[in-house]
């Protein structure tokens, strides 16, 4: 573009004259009018910032950065500090919260139980979710509609989805009544481990299907054709081509299910029995009835350590968890 000095009129309408140009001129005039007002000041500001790229970046990235640091990262650090204090915030420094937790057989049993349930839930969700994603990607033409039907339940209230299962699983609930009508014995599943597993599977399934779906969609279909051309059957093709090529999505899905299950308290509280305690419920107790915040904070740190270890493992194995919406592979 020619770098010649031009008047404002030329910039808006370089050619011609007549009524249209007059109209344009009027618009320019109006724009000019506001430019001296708020817009003008904003324009001055943007010019000022354009000449100072660092300041410009800071003015855009700074506020969200600051808010996430101050209201998300710092609270987590504060939790770490409090976990070393006795009885209340600002109490004497102590290791008692950790030693008390790590030497208590009751609490360690609860951690182990939580771990086992999380592993079971993750295995079920990964299996069913991958099967569903695979079926949708490879065998269905209405992928958008199906994906929507899978995602929608995820956006309704977590508690409501648990409540739906209370309706179904309680003794003489929907499930038992239906079995009864079919002449089968009642199961009375509510307040059992099975109910907890069903509840978790129900809430996390949509969440896990998303990364599975994404990685399967990105898979190059030619690879599958090549495998079949070379004589491999569908099962062998799946095990030696499809699964290894989508393993990143699988790992992401596993992490996305395991971590929230490990920290959950709503599902076991609503669907589990009194002896189906999970570690998240112990934290809830410390904050809602026992009021020993530092001890609750220490358990929060224990959970965080498990989470960090898992994330490091997953990143080593190649799950693409970070960089929201960024690089997919």
């Amino acid at each position, binding site marked *: 573009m020619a770098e010649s000095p031009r008047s404002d009129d030329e910039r808006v309408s370089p050619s011609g004259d007549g009524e249209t140009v007059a109209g344009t001129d009027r618009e320019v005039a109006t724009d000019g009018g506001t430019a001296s007002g708020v817009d003008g000041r904003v324009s001055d500001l943007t010019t000022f910032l354009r000449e100072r790229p660092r300041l410009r970046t800071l003015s855009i990235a700074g506020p969200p950065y600051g808010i996430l640091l101050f209201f998300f990262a710092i*609270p987590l650090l504060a939790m770490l500090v409090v976990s070393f204090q006795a009885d209340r915030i600002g109490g004497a420094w102590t290791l008692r919260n950790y030693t008390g937790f790590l030497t208590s057989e009751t609490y360690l049993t609860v951690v182990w139980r939580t771990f086992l349930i999380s592993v079971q839930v993750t295995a079920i969700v990964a299996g069913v979710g991958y099967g*569903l994603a695979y079926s949708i990607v490879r065998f269905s033409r209405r992928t958008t509609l199906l994906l929507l039907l899978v995602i929608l339940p995820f956006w309704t209230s977590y508690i409501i989805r648990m409540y739906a299962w209370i309706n179904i699983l309680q003794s003489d609930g929907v499930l038992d009544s239906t079995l009864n009508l079919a002449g089968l014995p009642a199961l009375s599943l509510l307040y059992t481990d099975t109910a907890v597993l069903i509840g978790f599977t129900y809430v996390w399934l949509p969440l896990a299907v*998303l990364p599975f779906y994404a990685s399967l969609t990105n898979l190059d279909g030619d690879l599958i054709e090549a495998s079949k051309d070379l004589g491999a059957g569908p099962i062998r093709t799946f095990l030696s081509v499809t699964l290894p090529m989508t393993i990143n999505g699988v790992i992401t899905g596993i992490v996305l299910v395991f971590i929230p299950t490990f920290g959950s308290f709503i599902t076991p509280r609503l669907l589990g029995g009194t002896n189906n305690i999970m570690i998240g419920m112990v934290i809830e107790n410390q904050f809602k009835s026992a009021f020993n915040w530092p001890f609750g904070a220490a358990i929060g740190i224990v959970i965080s350590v498990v989470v960090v270890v898992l994330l490091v493992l997953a990143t080593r194995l190649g799950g693409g968890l970070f960089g929201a919406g960024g690089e997919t592979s």
Partner: protein
Amino acid sequence: MSAVDRVTAPFERFAQAHASRMATVVIVAVLAFLWLPIAVLVFMSFADGGVLSFPPDQLTLRWYRVFLSNDAALDAIVTTLTISIPATGISVALSTMIAYAVDRYVFPGRSWLQLLATLPIIVPLVVTGIAMVLFFNGTLGLPDYVSVVIAHVIRTIPFATLVILPTFMSFDRRLEEASKDLGADEFETFRQVTLPNVFPGIVAGGLLAFTLSFNEFVYTYFVKGSGDPTLPVYIWNQIRYNVTPEVNVISVVFLAVAVSMVLAAVSLTRVDLIARR
């Protein structure tokens, strides 16, 4: 043919012959698993007998009338909205800034910003929840309302960013070059060229942020004191201490909000945008 091949051959043939049918069975079964409980919930909101009896003797709108004349429940909705609406606005503004900065600029700490904007999804809610109550209420002494709004902003930023960032990335930046070549400054270009193009994505991000905030329970449960409950906290108390059939009606309210918001969001963007990681 190796021994292994001879053993697996029948299975391979079976999979080959029935793959498509098995896929249909899986899809139908899982969708039924996902939607039947919701269908039961909606159906039971019309049941006359109450929570326990299934199948109900007859259908009625009674519980809807009870709900509409229940001040506690309606107050809970208002309380939720006074938190969700400002939280959504703040969250969308911040997420748009994150998306703009991450998409346009290379700066030190850029990947940290992305990490920070993703982490609230990954850290268990109960952990962040107690960290927030310790810091907001225990250390800073913020008023309940402010704490809860901040908590909702933190909760919704990752999801809003997840939707808004890709719309910035897929936006053709040559349009901006053209605008600047024609003499517009950066702010004018953003307002007149960039914003109209990324606006659907921003609205979609806002709708999802609102849905999430409207449903938010764990952070609210820990951060909010004993004051007016939000709707999810109200329903939690109902379920834990005195279940009435009215809970079914409130469930339908939640469903209606979520479904309409998400459908609106989806119509503005593409479904796989929400699915994308």
